[in-house]
């Protein structure tokens, strides 16, 4: 038995945590790429803000696009609802409201993440400190995910957590792929080639995917191969298709899943039908935009089915098998912690 409001809180808590982690990955990857840029090439800081879809808000808040401003905006800014600090703060608020269904250790961990983020947001960080802080955050988030996987009943609440986590992850993966667009290289394609390859390594590294790409993807690091791996590899847990499969599994465990599953299958079919041309440099943007649109449709279907309550809904039949099983599960776990 799961309240609609509770389901929504859990879903968003997982999304916020996942967004914080991926934003940290995006920033650390960018910082690595910057170090390897050849003379003459420049990095478009405003593109980074565009990638996460916050260009408008950024322009209102900062006079110019430079590293210090963009990093402040993405890492610490209270006025940016998508900054890492804000994401952790919202995740904590959602976690706090849901302490009755979440393992106690999760609250303690998320609360600790927030307290650390609050301390760090007090002043602007240099590159070395920033890297360490973001790596810590990624580790903390991974520990939180592991804690949920290992210490929480895989009940209805858990399905919503994983649903939110994987929808956000799929979306952020498509955005991180776009990072190469931020680098502007003047001159001939000859000088550009090694730089572009280096950029793709940066993308893979940011998603902890380089090693797995070497093992399971193609040998050369080049655009189409990386794109194909990050979008369509069925076994890499940050690829879009893997996330969709995970979402499908979660939806299958939920009641009334017809509409969300339909939206999921639309997205899935599009990935299956993508051709090499769709994944090529020329078509890449369009393809990623379409995937992001499909993910938004899945979110809308989930929200309409589970979060937004309709007054004319019919009472659930009492004592149906699954309902009883779930309510006794909730009760059992509550008494264990007693």
């Amino acid at each position, binding site marked *: *038995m*799961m*309240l*609609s*409001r*509770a*389901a929504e809180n859990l879903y968003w808590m997982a999304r916020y945590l996942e967004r914080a982690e991926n934003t940290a990955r995006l920033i650390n990857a960018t910082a690595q790429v910057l170090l390897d840029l050849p003379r003459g090439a420049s990095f478009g800081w405003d593109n980074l803000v565009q990638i996460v879809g916050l260009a408008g808000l950024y322009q209102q808040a900062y006079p110019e696009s430079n590293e210090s401003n963009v990093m402040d905006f993405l890492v610490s800014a209270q006025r940016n609802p998508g900054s890492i600090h804000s994401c952790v703060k919202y995740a904590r*608020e959602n976690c*706090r*409201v849901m*302490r*009755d*269904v979440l393992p*106690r250790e999760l*609250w*303690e961990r998320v*609360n*600790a993440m927030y*307290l650390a983020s609050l301390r760090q947001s007090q002043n602007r960080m240099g590159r070395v400190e920033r890297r360490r802080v973001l790596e810590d955050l990624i580790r903390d988030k991974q520990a939180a995910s592991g804690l949920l996987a290992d210490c929480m009943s895989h009940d*209805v609440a858990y399905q919503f957590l994983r649903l939110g986590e994987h929808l956000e992850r799929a979306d952020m993966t498509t955005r991180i792929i776009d990072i190469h667009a931020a680098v502007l290289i003047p001159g001939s394609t000859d000088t550009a080639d090694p730089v572009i390859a280096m950029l793709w390594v940066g993308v893979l590294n940011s998603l902890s995917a380089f090693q797995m790409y070497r093992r399971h993807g193609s040998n050369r690091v080049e655009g189409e191969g990386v794109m194909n791996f990050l979008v369509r590899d069925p076994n890499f847990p940050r690829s879009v298709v893997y996330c969709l499969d995970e979402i499908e599994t979660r939806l299958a465990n*939920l*009641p*009334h899943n017809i509409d969300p599953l339909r939206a999921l299958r639309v997205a899935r079919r599009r990935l299956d039908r993508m051709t090499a041309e769709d994944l090529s440099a020329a078509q890449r943007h369009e393809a990623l935009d379409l995937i992001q649109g499909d993910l938004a449709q899945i979110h809308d279907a989930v929200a309409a*089915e*589970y979060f937004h*309550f309709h*007054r004319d*809904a*019919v*009472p*659930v039949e*009492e*004592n149906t098998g699954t*309902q*009883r099983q779930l*309510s*006794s599960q*909730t*009760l*059992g776990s*509550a*008494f264990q*912690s*007693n």
Partner: protein
Amino acid sequence: MELGLERYLRSDGFDEFVGPDHAPRPAARALCRYLTGLAEEDLMARRAAVDAAIVTMGITFTTYGDGASIDRAWPFDPIPRVMAASEWAVIDRGLRQRLVALNLFIDDLYNDQRIVRDGVFPAELLANSRNFRGQCRGMSPRFGVWAHICGTDLVRDKDGTVYVLEDNLRVPSGVSYMLENRILMKSAFPELFEMCRIQPVDGYTAALYDMLAALSPRMGERPVIALLTPGIFNSAYFEHSYLAQQIGAQLVQGTDLLVGSDDVVYMKTIAGLRRVDVIYRRIDDDFLDPDVFRADSALGVPGLMRAWRKGNVAIANAPGAGVADDKVVYAFVPEIIKYYLSEDPILQNVPSYLCFRDEDREYVLANLDKLVVKPANESGGYGILIGPQATPEARRQCAERVKADPRGFMAQPTLTLSTVPTLVGNQIAPRHVDMRPFVLQSGSLYVTTGGLTRVALQEGSLVVNSSQGGGSKDTWIVEEGA
């Protein structure tokens, strides 16, 4: 560490740790030995660990009007308060007696009103009671119990006598802090629990579940229990969440519930509507049902009273139970006990002056500098005048309020609350305390082992409310002679 018990005793009050002979009282001997043997740095390190644990665990409360943050760390003192098991056994019996009598009283008021007809409880007091709910007339909840959960505030005066200060029968809070305090102490001072025979406190949540489950209107089914909270901005939200988790209840807000045309209460779930059998409500009567009480309430559930009157849902505490949570009614509790149980009260009331009685009012107005004046219907320490510490202007304003609404006020002599050792900086100093045990009643009765001890952290202060700067301590009921 050097405790300095000779220096420690200095007030004319009653100290629970040290007797007038400057020696620890029998129940406190083991603790005293332990503290004496503990290095100061060690104690400081443990306090730091406890403080860190409170922040990490997110044990918080909220102070109203504290705009910046909605939650603050719970102020906790690591020196436990010790009480002898033999003394506690008497208090335990007294608390049971008191709640049984109060429930008979409430049930009577909403039905035959025998106690009024027999002239024991004045009719005009009932007529002027703000917490008497006409909408509850003729109801008789299961077991005849209206106040299922009672938080009774106890204080000890300078001669050592324990008095009941008030009975909180509406939405008493604090029990989660009592439970958390024990967890904190166990992690910080595990060896103490081997040295002393300390009675456990953690049976409360199982007792709470049993009490609520016994109220379910659908016998034989596993009851669906919901804890109704006003939401995250309420000062006790931490507790609501904690208790829901501990008893396996759904933590709901008013908007999560609706009452169907079948007069049954449902929760809005991801799978549709689910019936609710028992509501442990943590919102006041006024906000429960906008159709019946305050129409502007966004916290409650329209139709809830209808469902309750039909017997389709149990509500704890029952609507209207607050009629006995009134500081004027309080003064009648000794008579109420005698009337319904034909027994003498085991626990004493603090002598009270009821301002609606002309003679009492004259006395109160003439002695405002010696008395504590309390509004009949407030809680949380709001609106109280502590005469000896108040400014002349505050006393004058209080006198005006009393004259304007005599039924709304009562007064009591200023008690010198007992003190217990408290860690202040790196010294141990006496600070005033009260205690709130929790009593449960439905099919059977349950009393917590000890209760929540609240401590006034300011030197000499008698205000222990956490909303006004108080802290808390773990409370130990110990077998003597250990």
